[in-house]
């Protein structure tokens, strides 16, 4: 069913009795041309773009849990392309462009809301670095505007401009950035992929890879053996665990990142605001809850929950820039498992095993990358060569010393 105002009116007039399930629930076939392991945002987007842009047929997505159970349903929903480095900025800008047309592409309301992102700066040196970043963004076709304190005051009068330790001097604004409804993105991609013939198989745990003479020919799953021409793995958070079954050790550690939501409030935060002196980012959901987060906990973890010291640190960050939120009551918090790569940038590449492809290492920036990650992984799977905006996201870049270290922190995953 195509969603539109007419389908809505039609259903309303007929008592909403004819809504069909959003995607099928097929049994796996014994062979597919392409199997995607991982039914998160990236896996589903990959399947969608393979079917819609690369004309591939006979595709399956295998998901261990259910659609929306992983990080696609556990993030702070921020969409932006304010990166600095050559290998990253074109990729994230491509992603933002895809976000802008996403709802039409997948015929689903993902509640894309381009209310802008403001990165606050607190010193002259930081202002200079934001000028540099803004210029880098504009050179790659993204939008960036440097705001002085007066301009910022007119947008966000509630910030603590006179903070003794970290006075707010201005901000770098990207107007096209914003937020999207995270699980609607998963459902929308799943539905759109399903409509193009992709089999989405839930509760299907991949237990092993079938590898012979350095060639991967399929996977063993909890629903039987599935053979495939090509296998793409997009299981960020569990990448090391899954790829260990194929005998690979990767430049990745799994860490826990926490996120927080307050009770619903009237609109107070315009767009996304980030703290430049600590680590804190905040936006307001359409329901009114303040959605915010900060650093990862810093130790390896596969538990989808974190500890209280980070909780405190994040709240202190919030209080430092906008004391008004101090009286909002916290409703809930949760944790997700991040693939922290050794340089803080992702990997979309072939593996040393033929016909086995890897999409991993998203650190805690995977949500905004969902469309471009899907597109570039689909391109790699269909054409056997990297997409033009993903040529530097290679698995062997650590070996070659060609790191994409946006933060300049070195091979220390918990610092990215």
């Amino acid at each position, binding site marked *: 069913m195509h969603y539109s105002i007419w389908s809505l009116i039609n259903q309303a007039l007929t008592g909403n009795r004819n809504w069909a399930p959003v995607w099928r629930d097929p049994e796996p076939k014994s062979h597919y041309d392409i199997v995607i392991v991982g039914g998160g945002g990236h896996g589903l987007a990959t399947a969608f773009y393979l079917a819609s842009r690369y004309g591939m047929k006979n595709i399956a997505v295998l998901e261990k849990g259910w659609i929306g159970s992983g990080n696609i349903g556990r993030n702070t929903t921020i969409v932006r392309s304010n990166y600095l480095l050559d290998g990253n900025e074109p990729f994230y800008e491509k992603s933002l462009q895809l976000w802008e047309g996403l709802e039409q592409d997948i015929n689903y309301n993902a509640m894309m809301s381009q209310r802008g992102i403001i990165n606050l700066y607190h010193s002259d040196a930081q202002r200079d670095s934001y000028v540099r970043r803004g210029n880098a963004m504009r050179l790659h076709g993204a939008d960036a505007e440097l705001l002085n304190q007066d301009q910022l005051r007119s947008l966000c009068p509630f910030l603590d401009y006179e903070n003794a330790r970290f006075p707010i001097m201005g901000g770098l604004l990207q107007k096209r950035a914003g937020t999207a409804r995270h699980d609607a993105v998963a459902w929308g991609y799943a539905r759109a992929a399903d409509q193009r013939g992709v089999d989405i198989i839930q509760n299907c745990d991949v237990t092993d890879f079938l590898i012979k003479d350095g060639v991967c020919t399929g996977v063993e799953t909890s629903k039987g053996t599935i053979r495939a021409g090509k296998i793409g793995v997009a299981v960020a958070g569990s990448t*090391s665990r899954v790829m260990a079954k194929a005998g690979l050790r*990767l430049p*990745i550690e799994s860490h826990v990142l926490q996120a927080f939501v307050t009770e619903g409030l009237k609109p107070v935060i315009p767009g996304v605001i980030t703290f430049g002196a600590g680590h804190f980012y905040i936006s307001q959901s359409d329901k009114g809850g303040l959605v915010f987060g900060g650093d990862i906990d810093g130790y*390896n973890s596969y538990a989808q929950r974190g500890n209280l010291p980070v909780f405190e640190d994040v709240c202190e960050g919030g209080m430092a820039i906008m004391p008004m939120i101090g009286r909002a009551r916290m409703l809930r918090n949760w944790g997700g498992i991040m693939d922290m790569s050794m340089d803080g940038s992702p990997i979309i590449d072939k593996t040393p095993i033929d016909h086995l492809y890897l999409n991993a290492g998203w650190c805690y920036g995977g949500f905004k990358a969902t469309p471009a990650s899907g597109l570039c992984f689909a391109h790699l799977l269909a054409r056997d060569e990297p997409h033009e905006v993903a040529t530097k996201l290679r698995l062997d870049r650590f070996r070659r010393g060609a790191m994409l270290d946006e933060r300049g922190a070195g091979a220390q995953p918990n610092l990215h």
Partner: protein
Amino acid sequence: MIINHPHLGPRDASEFSILGDASLINRPDWQAGDADDAFYSYLYLRDNPAGLHRELWFHEQGDRSWLVVTRDTVTHAIIDVALASDIAKAATSKMSKVNAGKKTAAKKTATKKTAAKKTAAKKTAAKKTAAKKTAAKKTAAKKTATKRDVT
């Protein structure tokens, strides 16, 4: 998380900073023929297990000692804490014993080989006993874990 410091007793994990996998103690030999490969995997590749993980913690807000903490990455339960210096010393004393046995160049290679075999055998033996110990400790830890909240 509470880390039971060998000298200072139970301390909050927020007093510490973590470096990562305890295998970082075993820095490869930079003069070895395969130093290139060895340093690549030393610097970048990680086992990243879901389960028991030996990792280096630094008591930054305390006595500034390095600890090797064995922790479950699925439950955050801490199974074992030891001083990293003890572990590093144990490793180097093994090496120096091996080196003391060397006299001539010919003997050197011979002893190296047997030493390597021996250490390998010792390692597996040690691993077995360690595994037994951790298993025993695990059950013990599980018992205590149910009592106090090990988030």
